[in-house]
């Protein structure tokens, strides 16, 4: 199957292409130099914007906690349903859509690759079963490893090499993609209802601190040559004054950064950038955090934008969800997983007329605008924590248009308005910048070599939007841009047109990307290991791994490790 996209304005930041009129040729699911002029199917992209398919570095779309969120919120689904068609399966939204609907909705926005960021290893099969039912997208998952007893024990012993071998084994076993760390030390403490409050607190029952866990795993990450850095959800997330903890975390990781390359991704940074002493005096810590990130090169991050809507918060950070429960009294799910992690879910309504929520909204935008290099901060809502992913076009509107964000700010709580730094920020992102924060930057940070760009050999994942950058002043016409990014003119997945004018025209299954990390010496699976397994978990060693049966289309990436 050959395809030629003619005359579009191409935004391909990895190759430095900024809105040039170009043709893109596609053959057998890859971008190629040229195609047969007559045989190829042609798409006339004259006056349209052409970008690589969208990449989302952090969105909770599948797995145990997402599904428990779905189960507990029929009131979230009833207002938003999707009918079955001859091409597509039925489903429901809103903040935690069913799997098929998730796939279709992302695809309609021109997204083609997603990262599902929190997979409890014990329940990894569940995550993969759901990913199999999430069509239209390539997907990968990060196993939660920051509070896994094996990691805590080997780091405590100082045996980095052995720790690395076990991490490699775990990533392969759970078919994962990166090391996810959530509130390091805090989740183990939460096993007995406690938490850690600085990065130097000792974890109860273990002689180790969050600092040691993060630095240890960052080093392990380097030893294993993993394509992505460690993916960190900081301690004290969501609490006033936590920007100091975030700064401590980033400073602690300086010791691991030796070659100027990123060593950690601080995810949903907005939730980690609160200043103030309590909820009454809570204000933005974005300035301090942005200043630090501007001056250093070892950190990447994503926004975690808050949307004013009714959504569902879900995270492995059980103690944080408990704090939210105490604040809201709403229905509360806690779900601890033996030996590995915890989790929590609370429905949450972010309100414009709530000073804290409005400040949170402002913080994420401040961060995105004050961190000068768009290659360092990416667009996310931490779906569904800050709001559903379907709000991405809105965020694009706020980023490209000062007018758009001032219009929203004007409707916010007075106190939040007064404290917001947004009125002082003049920066407006260009379409080129948007291409970075929604695809190129994310693909680069993830080490996904075939994604996020349109050079020859890349996956033919392409999004075409109905925006003419020559004739449209996007800052003024932000509503046009918002509409365009919400309903892609075309989404092309692996060279197939799957969306046209915001409607699904073909149902395709995506691949599950995972890492096969090869260490020189492997973890010994002997009777001793099996015995230890039986002691730590309530399942047998043989039944733990995610076998190929659980991947519909498996896409392993072989990585040679240094250990």
């Amino acid at each position: 199957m050959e395809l030629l996209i003619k005359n579009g304005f191409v935004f391909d930041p990895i190759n430095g292409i900024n809105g040039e009129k170009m043709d893109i040729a596609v053959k057998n699911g890859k971008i190629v130099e040229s195609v047969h002029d007559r045989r190829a199917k042609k798409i006339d992209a004259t006056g349209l914007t052409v970008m690589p398919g969208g990449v989302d570095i952090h969105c909770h779309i599948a797995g145990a906690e997402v599904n428990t969120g779905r189960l507990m919120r029929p009131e979230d689904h009833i207002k938003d349903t999707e009918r079955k068609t001859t091409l597509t399966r039925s489903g429901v939204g809103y903040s935690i859509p069913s799997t098929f609907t998730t796939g279709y909705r992302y695809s309609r926005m021109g997204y083609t690759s997603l990262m599902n960021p929190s997979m409890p290893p014990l329940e990894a099969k569940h995550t993969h079963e759901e990913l199999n039912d999430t069509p239209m997208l390539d997907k990968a998952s990060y196993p939660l490893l920051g509070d896994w007893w094996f990691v805590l024990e080997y780091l405590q012993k100082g045996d980095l090499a052995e720790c690395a071998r076990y991490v490699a084994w775990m990533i392969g076993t759970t078919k994962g993609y990166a090391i996810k760390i959530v509130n390091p030390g805090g989740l183990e403490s939460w096993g007995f209802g406690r938490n850690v409050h600085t990065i130097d607190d000792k974890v109860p029952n273990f002689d180790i601190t969050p600092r040691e866990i993060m630095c240890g795993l960052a080093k392990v990450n380097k030893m294993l040559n993993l394509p992505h850095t460690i993916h960190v959800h900081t301690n004290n997330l969501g609490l006033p004054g936590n920007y100091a903890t975030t700064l401590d975390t980033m400073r602690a990781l300086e010791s691991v950064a030796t070659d100027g390359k990123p060593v950690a991704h601080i995810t949903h940074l907005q939730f980690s950038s609160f200043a103030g002493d309590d909820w009454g005096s809570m204000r933005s810590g974005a300035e301090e955090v942005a200043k630090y990130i501007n001056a250093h090169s070892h950190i990447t991050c994503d926004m975690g934008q808050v949307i004013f809507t009714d959504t569902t918060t879900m995270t492995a950070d059980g103690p944080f969800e408990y704090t939210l429960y105490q604040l809201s009294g709403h229905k509360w799910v806690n779900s601890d997983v033996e030996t590995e992690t915890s989790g929590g879910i609370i429905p949450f309504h972010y309100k414009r007329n709530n000073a804290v929520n409005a400040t949170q909204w402002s913080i994420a935008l401040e961060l995105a605008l004050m961190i000068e290099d768009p290659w360092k901060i990416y667009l996310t809502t931490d779906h569904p924590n800050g709001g559903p992913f379907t709000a991405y076009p809105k965020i694009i509107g706020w980023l490209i248009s000062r007018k758009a964000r001032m219009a929203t700010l004007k409707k916010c709580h007075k106190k939040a308005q007064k404290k917001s730094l947004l009125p002082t920020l003049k920066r407006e992102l260009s379409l080129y910048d948007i291409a970075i924060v929604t695809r190129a930057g994310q693909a680069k940070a993830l080490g996904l070599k075939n994604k996020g760009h349109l050079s020859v050999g890349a996956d033919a994942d392409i999004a075409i939007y109905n925006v003419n950058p020559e004739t449209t002043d996007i800052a003024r016409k932000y509503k046009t841009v918002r509409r365009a990014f919400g309903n892609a003119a075309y989404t092309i997945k692996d060279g197939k047109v799957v969306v046209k004018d915001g409607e699904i025209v073909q149902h395709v299954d995506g691949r599950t990307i995972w890492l096969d990390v090869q260490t020189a010496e492997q973890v010994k699976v002997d009777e001793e290991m099996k015995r230890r397994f039986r002691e730590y978990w309530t399942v047998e060693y043989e039944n733990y791994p995610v076998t190929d049966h659980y991947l519909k289309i498996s896409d392993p990436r072989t990585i040679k490790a240094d250990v």
Partner: protein
Amino acid sequence: MSTTVNAVTCPVCGCLCDDIELTIENGVVVKVKNGCAMCESKFFNYKNEHRNKTPLMRKEGKLVPVSYDEAIHKAAEILANANYPILYGWSSTDCEAQRVGVELAEEIGGVLDNTAVVCHGPSILSVQEVGIPTCTLGQIRHRADLVIYWGCDPWSAHPRHLERYTTFTEGRFKGSEWKEYMNKVKASAGKKKLLSLERREIVKRKPEPIIEKVTVNKPPETLGKAGRKLIVIDVRKTMTAEVADYFIQVEQGKDYELMLAIRALVKDHELDVDQVAGVPVEYLEELVDAMVNCDFGVIFFGMGLTHSAGKFRNVDVAISLIRDLNRRTKFAILPMRGHFNVTGANTVSTWQSGYPYAVDFSLGYPRYNPGETSVVDVLLRKESDAALIVASDPASNFPRKAVEHLVANPLIVIDPHMNATALLGDVVFPAAIVGIEKAGTAYRMDHVPLPLKKVVEPPEGILSDEEILSRILEEVRVIKSQRMQEAA
């Protein structure tokens, strides 16, 4: 020829023990290691004579053997022609079959429901009201020092629950109480022996000791001890209650009251009555002390809460109690799920449609309103016009009126055995037994997915639930597209 297969997952109850060792000789299971009585019974008896060897179809009032092709075509015809079919069962098959089931329900615009509707459905309603602070079973093994079973009897219904996950396991932070239990058993056996010797006048009878009058529901001295404690709350003294440190006999139908009283005490309120649900308040205070002072407590609850008076309100207040207790210490709550994959049925249905059970696809999108879209209610209102029953036997446990309507319409049954529903069916498919003759996936009561193994071959020519359903779905699509063409 004999082979041993280890780490087999047992497809019986929600415990889903995965350490079963089977010895297989000439394609037959001859030895079961580690399993409980229910597990052994399943692995030894799967080949019994009640098994149906070929598909059956009702012709002139009689079930007669037919080929799979004929039966599948007939089943597809029934479903494609139905306006409002129900698809029920699902809890004793694997997730792979359940996935096809949801797709089929969507294709024919039916009502998809699983056995949770007559089981832990009320628990799900409560979760939708107040959430649920829970954890996986290993967390309890490692950390729990207070285990409460409320309205359930694991010793009989989930026989290895205590030994694998709770009181009698060795965890990282908490030890097993097995030895103490054995001592208790030995002491009681010794006492019986002594009595018997006295009776036979081999030992001279000592003067009758003055026994202090035991008040009902009095907490034992040991309630304040270190280590794991086991408390059972039930309306009768169950097998589990026999091994418990403390058994509270709650008056029939007063679980809700008792739970509310405990909630009040946890919140440091004074109660101005002497007793609640047959339990003196001073004893309740001791119970609450034990709850508040533990490191990690857990309540397991069963049908005693979900299907006694109050139903989901009982679970609602139980979960609310756990929410309150979490302000004082760490506490969790778990439903004791019955069928080995009822959790999977809820899970699969939820990720595909957004709703865990009682999903109505008749409008082309999933709709959920238990009481309206739940299978028993649909049957009682006589709305359905066909039914597909997979791995379940509603005829023997639904209300009679509901069964009457079920059998008044075309009834398709997929089951390895000739159960009551199959005997009343119009098209009956024999199926391979999931977890013995068919590999798949099941979810444990705490949502941990485990692989099921295929250890022996199914009887010749017998298909699995998944295959039968996939073929029916395919056939339904063929029939529907033919109809579309004819219409055009």
